[in-house]
């Protein structure tokens, strides 16, 4: 689920305007891309922590 979310968030910039006055600047892009990155890392750490406690839980959730 997270890779898909990340994938979608990181393809959004492709829809930004690329020419003309209203083109998005790379400084904004920098903030955006790294912002998503931090968000994804945070979520993963959270998820990992949640499934850490019992390895039994991992078996039951298999394939989710």
């Amino acid at each position, binding site marked *: 689920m*997270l*890779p898909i979310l*990340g*994938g979608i968030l*990181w*393809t959004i*910039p*492709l829809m*930004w305007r*690329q020419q003309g006055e209203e*083109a*998005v*600047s*790379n*400084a*904004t*892009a*920098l*903030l955006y*891309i*790294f912002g998503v*990155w*931090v968000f*994804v*890392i*945070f*979520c*993963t*750490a959270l998820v*990992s922590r949640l*499934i*850490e406690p019992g*390895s039994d839980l991992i*078996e039951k959730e*298999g*394939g*989710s």
Partner: protein
Amino acid sequence: MLSFNLLVVVALAYVLLLFLVAFMAERRAAEGEDGWLRSPMIYTLSISIYCTAWTFYGAVGYAARSGFEFVTIYLGPTLVMVGWWWILRRLVRIGKTQRITSIADLISSRFGKSTQLGMIVTIMAVIATTPYIALQLQSVTLSFAVFADSDGSSWSLGDLNATAIWVAIGLAVFTIVFGTRNLDANERHHGIVIAVAVEAVVKLVALLAVGIFVVWGLAGGPSEMLAQIEASELSTWNQDGGRWITLIFLSAAAFLCLPRMFQVLVVENADERHLHVASWAFPLYLMAMSLFVLPIAVVGLDLLPESANPDLFVLTLPLSQGQNGLAIFSFLGGFSSATSMVIVSTIALATMVSNHIVVPIWLSSGGNEGAMQSGDVRRVIVISRRLSIAGILALGYLYYRLSGGGTALAAIGLVSFSGAVQVLPVMLGGIFWRGATRVGAALGLVTGLIVWGWTLFLPSIGENAVLSAAVLLEGPCGIAWLRPQALFGIEGLDPLIHGIFWSMLFNSAMFFLCSVMSFPLPLERLQGAQFVDVFAHSAQSRTWTRGTADAEDLLIMSQRILGSTQAQSVFQAAAMDQGKEGYLPDVTPDFVERLERELSGSVGAATAHAMIGQLTQGSNVSVEDLIAVADEAAQILEYSNQLEAKSAEQERTARALREANAKLTEVSEQKDAFLSQISHELRTPMTSIRSFSEILRETEIGPKDRSKYAGIIHNEAIRLTRLLDDLLDLSVLENGQVELHQQSGSLSELIERAIDASGVSKKELRIIRVNAEEDVPLHTDLDRLAQVFINLITNAAKYCDVEEPELRISVQAIGGGHVVDFVDNGAGIPRSKQAMIFEKFTRVSDQSTAGGAGLGLAICREVMSRLGGGITYLPGQGGAAFRVTLPAPQALAAQ
């Protein structure tokens, strides 16, 4: 200005430090203190070999040329790591259960342990990695050149080439020293892993340091930095959607498929739970690595002259500002990223080359029929691994020379990536789709390789190097639709997208179609089910059903591959699990399966399967196994697995009981036999003593005869005494009433003494003492130990039944203790007797000529157990072989 010599000294000191760190880690691991070596953080850091010199130098150049595109190379792996649950966890689990040694082994093992597939993947991996290794050599060389330039001396091409050669040689030495120490690829290379982890920290800190210097030192702070980015020529977001998505896909795929990534992710993984931490820590590492790339590029473009190579901004920027210390640090960072990648890559490739190319060829070219010596296969593998390491680095150097070292770093890296990802369809198909077959996999791989080679690899070497400019423009022989960069006349595509698109399309299509059309072999089905359902089938189904092999033959073969020490310990452990003593377990299908897995950790699945197959002959996959694989039967399978486990347990107990019973019966029979024999043996000398003494008493005889008769009486009395002494000795030992006289001495003197005392002449028995390891200090009852040695030596002299008897005495250090092996060249002891020889009153041969009462070995065993050591029979050595385990040092210290 910075002295170039200083830089060389720093670099050498750094290399020395790495050697030291690696060496210390190996030492700690050997002493068993490797807990911290297996921490999730070390695992995460070792994954960071993904960031090579291409990242370190190339990313900035990439950013300077194409803006934000560089970041895709890190987004892909981030997505893979974040989604570890789906693919990585599965790969790691499969790698663990099947003892996978490399990506080629994974593919070959999945598709019925096919040798050919292993070869194809290996060849692909070597071709795809070569440019990458060349790239690393190039980056290190260029960074040296930068410093040489700043020192005032401008480098010629010759200097560059010489540097590249020295770097390659140094890397080869390091890799050979630390990378080929353990043969079993499943054992982790502690030295290398720790060196790689150190290098990972160095490169991260170095890049961050340069970044911080640029943002705070040169630009004046984050907000000013952002403003400067706005103002620069890289100011606007300008991305081609096709390239953006293709590159994210490409880097994600390469992250899984590159041989070196597979090595650190799967093979060197010590614990599946490390993935939990790595899943967020590695993306964090990647983010930190790329955080300052754009700022450095922008400031570099701004401050440095236009002619400056943007690939080297990370170095030239601090240099131009007079920050020599920072420049050297950043040089070390780049050096680290290049070397760690090359080291791990060559290890991964060397394992693949030796297991999937050299050994199969060696086996089929008759190497197997030659002298069967323990450890000979192992030697071939180690040598071939060392040679392949050197060979792969030589190839990298060759590519570097061929390509002229001119192309931008990023471009070479992408070509290499796209070659590696040709394995992706087959790999994913293999672990998610049961229908994938060997034929499909092979054709898919070959097709992918050809299309990639034609559209990306050959053009990358440079115009006119292999492909002429005319071929690029007009196609081979003027066939326009075969132009390498515009297949089927579709022009205007980016060459990279073009190449990846067509190669992946053909590759996957061939794989899918041929898989659907071909029929898998039984073994493929079985392996397929085990791979796809790796989480459900924790209990593996069997590949070997009708084992007809003899345990001793299997042991001899394993000794050739694993070396005698390791093979014996595997067999001993298996025997212990079955509740047996000694070195020969029963040849159950479970055991053969376990052995095969053990061997495949060393030589790869295909070879291990083939070698065991030679011995077990008709063993194969049975119909029941296939039924068990079917999905519908999964429930029943689970239940029957439980039953099976229970019945296996019962079988084990029953076997142990049966054996104990047989032993008891035999002992009691032998005891009866012995009683009659002992009375006989006591009576014979008694009779002669009595009759001769009567003669002496009653008749008048001459002095000559009298002394003769007295001599006979004396000899018979001595024989009686010896027999009674032995009996007494044994009973004292068995009751534990024996007193031990602790003495100190050295093993070699003791063996010397035993040989002298045994009174065996050179003609009777030639004694060969192997190994200089005899210099072991002893503190135990030396007289008792000598008694054991003497007994073994005289036994060999008595029972070795060849014309020129030989006895080999060798000392080895095993698992912290020492053992002494006594091996003769006679016929050995038949299997049926091996369990009995240490029992009292046992004689192997019925010949009474030898004259013993069958007590010698029983006494030896009692003595050794009193001393805290042991004695066992060692099968599979060519003759009768006894292994004396010396008392452990701890036991000595306690006494």
